[in-house]
Structure formats: C-alpha cells, structure tokens
C-alpha cells in the first residue's frame, strides 16, 4: 500500500529525523498523502515539535481518529491529521497501540482541540489518553458497556 518515493528528501520527514533519529519509525506516501509512523512513547514529544517548529508550523490539528485492526496486533491505529497553513501541507501521524490496555499520551496540551477527539476515541474504542484533563464518555451514555466502534462489537449492538 505504499508508493515509496524518495522520502528522505521529503522536508517533513527529513526535519523530524534530524530532530530525533528515533522519531520516525516508518514513512510512506499513498495517493499523495504523507504518513509518518511515530513510536508510541514519542508521540507527545513529536507533536510538540511539529506544532512549534517555525518552519513546519503544523498548528491546526484537523482530526484524530482511531481504527481497529482486530484480530491483528498491534490492534489500534491512531491517526493524527494535521495541517500547516503556512506550508499548505497536510500530514498524517500514525501511532500503533496494542489491544491489551491501550493507552497513549494525550496531546491536549499541544492542541486544545484534541480534547473532544480523544474523548470520542476513548468512548468508542476504549483507548485511554494519559494526561487528558477530562476523560469521560462523550457520545454514549455514561453507564454504557463496551466500545461500539471496536470490530468485535456487533453492528446491531449486544442483545
């Protein structure tokens, strides 16, 4: 699924690697969209760098989503879609999380907009965010059992 180009030449990948050699685990381009896989432990650090770097300026976090790859492991993929208005560029940062006790660092301190996105992922996928100021369900009722967007949750719900 990768149309690997000369990704070392890509300024975003290059800058990230230059800043921290371990920050980029993988990089790929599919249909013209750049995806950078960041190790789970370095997510918030990388987010701070991408947001604050005067050249990159990924100041607008468009979206955070999760995808469940059940029964594959690592089960969850978190995708951070960010946008640099100055560079006219989008970037997808991907973090892979294991299925048992999934937990990631919160990026609410970097982009306040992440608050509701992370609550939604917590609610619908059951991924916890460390350091989130107000981590509770957002779509489902508070006493709901299970996480509806997981693949082992039936579309019609449990009956």
């Amino acid at each position, binding site marked *: *699924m990768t149309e690997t180009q000369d990704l070392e030449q890509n300024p975003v990948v290059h800058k990230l690697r230059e800043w921290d050699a371990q920050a980029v685990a993988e990089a790929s381009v*599919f*249909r013209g*969209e750049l*995806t950078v896989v960041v190790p789970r432990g370095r997510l918030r650090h990388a987010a701070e760098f991408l947001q604050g770097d005067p050249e990159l300026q990924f*100041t*607008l*976090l*468009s*979206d955070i*989503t999760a*995808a*469940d790859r059940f029964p594959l492991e690592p089960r969850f993929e978190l*995708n951070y*879609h960010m946008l640099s*208005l100055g560079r*006219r560029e*989008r970037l*997808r940062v991907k973090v892979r999380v294991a299925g048992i006790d999934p937990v990631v660092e919160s990026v609410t301190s970097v*982009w*306040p*907009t992440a*608050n*509701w996105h992370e609550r939604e992922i917590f609610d619908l996928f059951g991924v916890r965010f460390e350091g989130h100021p107000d981590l509770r*369900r*957002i*779509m*489902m*009722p508070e006493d709901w059992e299970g996480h*509806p*967007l997981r693949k082992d949750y039936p*579309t019609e719900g449990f009956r």
Partner: protein
Amino acid sequence: MPTTVSTATGATETMVLNMGPQHPSTHGVLRVVLELDGETVVKAQPEIGYLHTGIEKSCEAKTYSQAITLTDRLDYLAPLSNNLCYCLAVEKLLGLEVPKRAQYIRVLLTELTRIGSHLVWLGTHAIDLGAMSVFLYCFREREEILKILEMVSGQRMMTSYFRIGGLALEPPAGWLEPVERFAAMFPGRIQEYEELLTRNRIWLARTVGVGTISAADAIAMGVTGPTLRATGVAYDVRKLFPYSSYDEFDFEVPTRTDSDCYARYLLRLEEMRQSLKIIRQAMAKIPPEGPIRTDAPGIVPPQREKMKTEMEALIYHFKIFTEGFSPPPGEVYQAIESPRGELGFYVVSDGSPKPARVKVRAPSFINLQALPKLVEGRLIADVVACIGTIDIVLGEVDR
C-alpha cells in the same frame, strides 16, 4: 459544583443552569451546562451525544456505494457537501478521475447547497434573536433551491445525487433555467436581508462585540469555516487544496477581523454572494452534453441502455449491486469546504467491498468545542447568539 464568588456586597454562590437538551435555540438536541453568577456565564460545558446514531459504525456494514445514503444524514442542511466529500474520498482511494462535466455540475450544486444552508442559518439565527420576518424571507428563497435539487435528483433533502465516479443520473433537460432565474433574483434578496438587519439597532446590540475569539485561539481549538475566517485567517479548503476543479473558478475568500457575531453575519452574507459568482461561472462552463460518469467497469454502474443490451455490462451491473467493488488496501483523508468549515472523510480500505473504517471530521463537532471560549464571561442571552452564530448541525456533531 457551585463555587463561591465574592462580590462587593459579600460572598454569593453560583448557580448551575441546564440549557437544553430541549431548547428551541439550540438547533437540535444540545445541552449546555451553564454555571452562572447572576446573569453572567462563569463556565459553559456543552454536552452532546443525544443524537448519536452510529453512522460511522453503520458505514462499515455497507458497501462503498451504499454508504453514500448515510452521509446525507450527517449535515442534513447541506447533504450534497457530504455526498461530495465522501465520493471524493473513495474516488481518491480508487484513483478515479471524474469527467469535467460532472465536476462542474457538482460545483454548481454544492454552491447552491451552501447558499441554502446559509439561508437556514440566517433565518434561525435571526429568529433566535427575535427577528421573526427574516426567517420567512430566508425560507422563501431556500424553497427555490430545494425545488432545483428535487428537479435534478428527485429529492429535496436526502439527495444522494453524487455517486462514486460521477453523478447518479443525467440532469433533466432545461434544468439550468430555474438556476438562472434564481441567480438573477437572489442578489436583490440578499439586499432585503441587509435592509432588515445590517443597520437594525436591535440586531447590532445583540451581535456587535458578542462572542469574540482570537485567531490563535481559534486555530488551537481547530475551528474552521466562517468562524475562523471572521478572525482574519483566510483558510478555505477550496483555495488551499482545490478539489473538483475549484481552481478553475474565480472567487474570493471573504475575511473579517472583528471575530464577533456581527462579523460572522456579514461574512456569511458575502459568502453567499461569492457562491452566486461561482454558480454563474459554472452555468457557463457546463457543456450541454458529455459523460456524467467516468468509465470504470466494475466500479461505476454501466449505462442503462448498455446494461439491457450487452452481456458484459449486465454482469458488471449485477456484481456492483450485489457484491460491490473492492478498492486497493490503503487509507485516504479528503477534505472539502462545507458551509460550516473543513469537512473531512477518512476512509480505510482493507481490500474488501466494505470500508474498514469511515471517520467523519465534522466541522460542527469541532467548532462547538470552542463555544465556552465565546461565551464565558458574557451574559446568558449571548449564549443563544453564539450558538446560532457558529452554525452547528447536531446531526453532524453527534453522528
């Protein structure tokens, strides 16, 4: 929890007030928990989820083509924007190119939808603030738009007219005439709204200086659309990342710097004028004849004539409508400028005929999150003005 507030006359307690979920001015079922000190809002906390229908989950149980009908129901005031964004995302996944004629028709209809959506916003926003007649005027014009949509797609609201690879069907002969009539009539109608509101003293008192947000705050909160542009940031997906041939159209992205409710009102009026400009250009551009669907056997349904006469076309038709088609494994994020801001679809394919994941980046959901920034420290009456002015659709917020 109520907190103690000290004032000049001594210590008082704040009061917690539930606004909604049933409240006419919350445009759906939104609940805002307000902590009040007298009439002043100390803290506002939007609570959502009352309209959660699990559309993203349902998409995973449908084929790529079937899921289009679900996208109508997200932002029900601009169904064609949702159709367009979803179709563009799947087309990107497949690597499909849509014929120019279909692209221009898509542009024309989505711009009409934008006007229609802004009209509902203006009407309901005005009625929230006590101006009854504007509502009736706006819905009069919106009716004309809905008639055009019905004529083209057979549906007033849940159109599902854009399909993967093009359009559902050829628009009827002479369909541009009512569009032309609308384009000729509408500038005068915008003038009417302006006469009713722009210098109306009550309107000014309710909107000027109300609900301001700084550009830096708006970007940090992920706010897009008119609310962001009213802070002076000229971010419009149509300009920054053109799709569906928007780069061939000549239009401006209006911005303002006051970032209050009044600025957003003026901005949306200007956006309607710009949409009209695009519609006029599209009318001139659309060739009278030509394909409306791309030629991709096995993905795009064959023409009815062919399906009835050719064996191969019949087989493709049968396969598309029973099994569907399987895009290559991969993931795409496609954004468009909906009337409310950046609407995005993130679609993941695992190589099967059903999407593995469909995520909607709903602009209303994200813009609503910034509501506390607009209302905290202001009067309770301003909350109504602010909810109206960020223009949320709860169908999209809760999905």
